[in-house]
């Protein structure tokens, strides 16, 4: 090991003076081999800091395999927790402190440039002088690889210390690590013990006890051996708050909306919504049906919705593709349906566990024929909850398909937000079984709005056959030009009516300036933070974020006209104008940019990436400065 980057004092030595590192926030990572529990450690740490009224954002670090080989960079598993004074809306830039259970998982983070140059690295030290020569060589190679950075490396004898408390250190290192963090950040030990006991509530009492002992071992070791503490000011909050991830929020939102039927087929990263619903839905009278495939899941949801309350189906990109024909049927028959698409990287199987915002155009347009549907995108964990209620209400009121575009970043990222207060008005009423009047038609379209009232099976006098074929107001198959034009008009008109009820998107920053950034979905926090940094430097930049993608919120053209340049920032593919062969004529724009250009006729530019990880405020900030510099030098716009 390179002595220049620091060594931990021996456990016999108690440092007399401790350096107090003051910061407004920290990004902390805990990484281990899969199965060593770094994720649990990170989760409890996140709750504990949220409990102390810090703002938090967490990101799961997930290997692609269930049991990747131990001690490999590809197997790195864990949690990133960004926390600080005030609200935290994204994962930030790079880690300030990392706890790594071996040097290989540390390398994984190093290679992803996830660590700051002065990152504090608490590294399990048993591998340095391991009896296996190959492991010692790997350790040395890793030390050489990271030596170019200024990390403050602190070797920690985790194994040795854990063995003082338990027989199998592999099962307990995570709690020891949590103890280190508890001491470093001055967390509430009692609350953490409570969380540990809750975690192991189903197991024998000794399990919780030995984990609490490991926690204490970590605390004691840190108190005796670490020469620094980190102090982050906190502002007490009186408001009731909850911490959860986006998939939990979406599942609870579905419950809160009064939906009582979900048909799904397992697909990453959407499945945990279904797992959670499977766990709790029945106690609300709700059913989750795991169908035989994605197409069946859509069909079952459509059948359930046709006969009862608005139903839900949960999927990700490849599943959305398979459901396409079924969604066309729901749109044509005007059967309300909520589709939650937790996006991942594509095309094809793409990046199953990693984030991308690539399904926007598919959600909007994938369908033969004209098939208007509503598309919504939550931008925060809190919105993942409330969007489900909005989606259910729109689906019912407009007899339409509502696609909700969440993504892998929101799915597993945790944030705290104001605790929702469930409201009976969020609930769907049961399907009416009243007798249908003589004049009521299955598609009694209001000629102005296209809106009509649904007739469901069981209603006397309402018998009719719904069909994916073109039909008239009585639901009779009708291929005449007039009938086809009327149906197409009525289905589309509903979107215009919904559009009238929407507000223009709020502007973050001034309402005019040199540059407007436009985003959608989970990138909101990173974009706004980047805009704030640029504004603090004096740049006239603002941002706006779209929740409704179909119909688009009103006033966009007007908002855009008040800025010199408009640029989307997105997590999907768009051609870089600097790339070979790319010309203004053949440049393929990112998905929102494509949509906004068509919708507003404004020359909207875009900056996009597909790294399979959330955008960082730092890279967006750099892009803003770069774009503004280009404008200043009078470079021609594309």
């Amino acid at each position, binding site marked *: 090991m390179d002595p220049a980057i620091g060594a931990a004092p021996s456990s016999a030595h108690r440092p007399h003076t401790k350096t107090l590192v003051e910061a407004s926030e920290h990004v902390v990572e805990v990484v281990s081999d899969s199965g060593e529990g770094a994720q649990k450690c990170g989760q409890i740490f996140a709750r504990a800091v949220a409990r102390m009224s810090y703002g938090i954002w967490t990101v799961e670090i997930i290997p692609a395999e269930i049991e990747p080989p131990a001690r490999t960079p590809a197997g790195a598993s864990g949690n990133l927790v960004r926390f600080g004074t005030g609200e935290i809306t994204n994962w930030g830039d790079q880690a300030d402190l990392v706890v790594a259970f071996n040097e290989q998982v540390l390398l994984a983070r190093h290679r992803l440039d996830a660590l700051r140059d002065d990152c504090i690295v608490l590294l399990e030290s048993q591998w340095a002088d391991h009896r296996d020569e190959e492991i010692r060589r790997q350790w040395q190679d890793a030390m050489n690889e990271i030596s170019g950075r200024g990390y403050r490396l602190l070797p920690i004898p985790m194994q040795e210390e854990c063995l003082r408390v338990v027989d199998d250190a592999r099962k307990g290192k995570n709690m020891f690590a949590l103890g280190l963090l508890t001491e470093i950040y001055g967390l509430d030990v009692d609350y953490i013990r409570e969380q540990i006991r809750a975690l192991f509530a189903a197991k024998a009492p000794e399990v919780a006890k030995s984990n609490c002992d490991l926690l204490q071992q970590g605390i004691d070791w840190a108190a005796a051996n670490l020469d620094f503490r980190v102090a982050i000011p906190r502002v007490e909050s009186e408001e009731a708050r909850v911490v959860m991830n986006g998939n939990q929020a979406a599942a609870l939102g579905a419950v809160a909306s009064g939906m009582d039927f979900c048909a799904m087929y397992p697909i990453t990263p959407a499945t945990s919504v279904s797992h959670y619903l499977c766990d709790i839905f029945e106690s609300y*009278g709700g059913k989750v049906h795991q169908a*035989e495939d994605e197409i069946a899941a859509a*069909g079952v949801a459509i059948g359930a919705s046709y006969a009862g309350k608005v139903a839900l189906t949960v999927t990700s990109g490849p599943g959305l593709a398979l459901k396409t024909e079924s969604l066309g049927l729901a749109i044509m028959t005007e059967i309300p349906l909520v589709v939650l698409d937790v996006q991942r990287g594509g095309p094809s199987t793409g990046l199953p566990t990693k984030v991308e915002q690539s399904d926007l155009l598919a959600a909007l347009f994938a369908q033969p024929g004209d098939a208007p549907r509503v598309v919504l995108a939550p931008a925060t964990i809190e919105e993942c909850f409330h969007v489900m209620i909005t989606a259910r209400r729109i689906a019912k009121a407009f007899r339409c398909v509502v696609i909700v575009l969440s993504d892998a970043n929101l799915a597993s990222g945790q944030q705290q937000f104001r605790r929702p207060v469930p409201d009976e008005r969020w609930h769907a009423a049961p399907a009416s079984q009243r007798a249908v009047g003589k004049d009521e038609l299955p598609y009694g379209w209001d000629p102005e709005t296209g809106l009509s009232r649904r007739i469901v099976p069981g209603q006397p006098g309402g018998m009719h056959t719904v069909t994916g074929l073109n039909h008239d107001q009585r639901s009779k198959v009708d291929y005449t030009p007039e009938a086809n034009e009327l149906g197409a008009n009525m289905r589309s008109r509903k979107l215009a009516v919904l559009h009238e009820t929407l507000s223009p998107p709020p502007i973050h920053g001034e309402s005019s300036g040199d540059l407007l950034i436009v985003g959608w979905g989970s990138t909101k926090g990173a974009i706004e933070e980047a805009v704030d940094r640029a504004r603090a430097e004096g740049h006239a930049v603002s941002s706006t974020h779209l929740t409704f993608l179909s119909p688009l919120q009103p006033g966009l053209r007007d908002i855009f006209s008040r800025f010199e340049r408009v640029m989307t920032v997105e997590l999907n593919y768009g051609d870089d104008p600097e790339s070979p062969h790319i010309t203004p004529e053949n440049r393929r724009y990112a998905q929102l940019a494509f949509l906004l250009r068509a919708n507003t006729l404004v020359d909207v530019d875009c900056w996009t990436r597909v790294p399979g990880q959330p955008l960082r405020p730092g890279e967006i900030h750099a892009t803003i400065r770069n774009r503004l510099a280009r404008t200043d030098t009078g470079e021609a716009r594309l």
Partner: protein
Amino acid sequence: MHQELRSFFDCSMDDDHTFELEDYGSVVARWCGGCGDHGVLNAVKRLMRDEQLPAERTVFVSGIGCSSRFPHYLDTYGFHGIHGRALPIATGIKLSRPDLDVFVVMGDGDCCSIGAGHWLHATRYNIDMTALMLDNAIYGLTKNQTSPTTPQGYKTNTQPRGSWLPALNPLTTSLGVTNVSFVAQTADWVPAHLFETLQAAHRHRGFAFVRILQRCPKFTLPLFAQQARTPDLHELLVHPDGVNVPTLEKIYKRRIEHDPSDLDRARVLAEDPDRIRLGVFYRNENRQRYDDIRRLPSYTAAQNIARLDAELDRYAV
């Protein structure tokens, strides 16, 4: 449908009303003359009349193809969906509304080809519904393409030198699926048997699968013309627990005793390619039903809100 479920939703029933055939369908069906679908439609209307099924509580779900026009010719609720997906839609209806009486009408392309996966799983789910597979051994609506049940060597527009492979046997396929509970076969040219089979299927509690052999006058007439005229090519499965039509016994003299609870023998009988066997191959009402297993109490909004409040508290910090 079962009486106890009729109060599932608050709906007053007019018990004095007697339903007539006209209550179930007034539209003239637009299938070709001589199409077997007409016979099935008549038998279904008669079944509804005889069983006095309330039209507003009856749903016919279909896929795509000639046979899938079926719901349009009935005055019940109907769902004319997309190719191969009738079974998932019916599954959703029945899971969400156990009080409704659900029929599924599929063609051989729907059931055995594009929707074959759903067929297998619907059999295993064993949800209480009546599934009719109208098997004319051809894709008719799209004009004469080979279907999985087209006999080997039979010429079509997609296999003009004759169907390459032996036909799929829908009976043995169904009988091979775990949790199968009712499999029967009948033919459009034996209307009395068709009716009795539909009635037995409808009365069965579980997923009742009926393969109905039927003629397509445009594309497969030669396939069934000889059989339809020759009762001796048929063999009726008879048993007190099966379908019994005494009036047929003078014409259809070949009969075989088959106890529908005998699954092994059902598979053997279904396998024989030389005979057209009509009747109930298998019936077992003791199979587990997914719709039964998944039945839930309902809660008031206030109860659910209280529960959700408690659940949210688990996330409080």
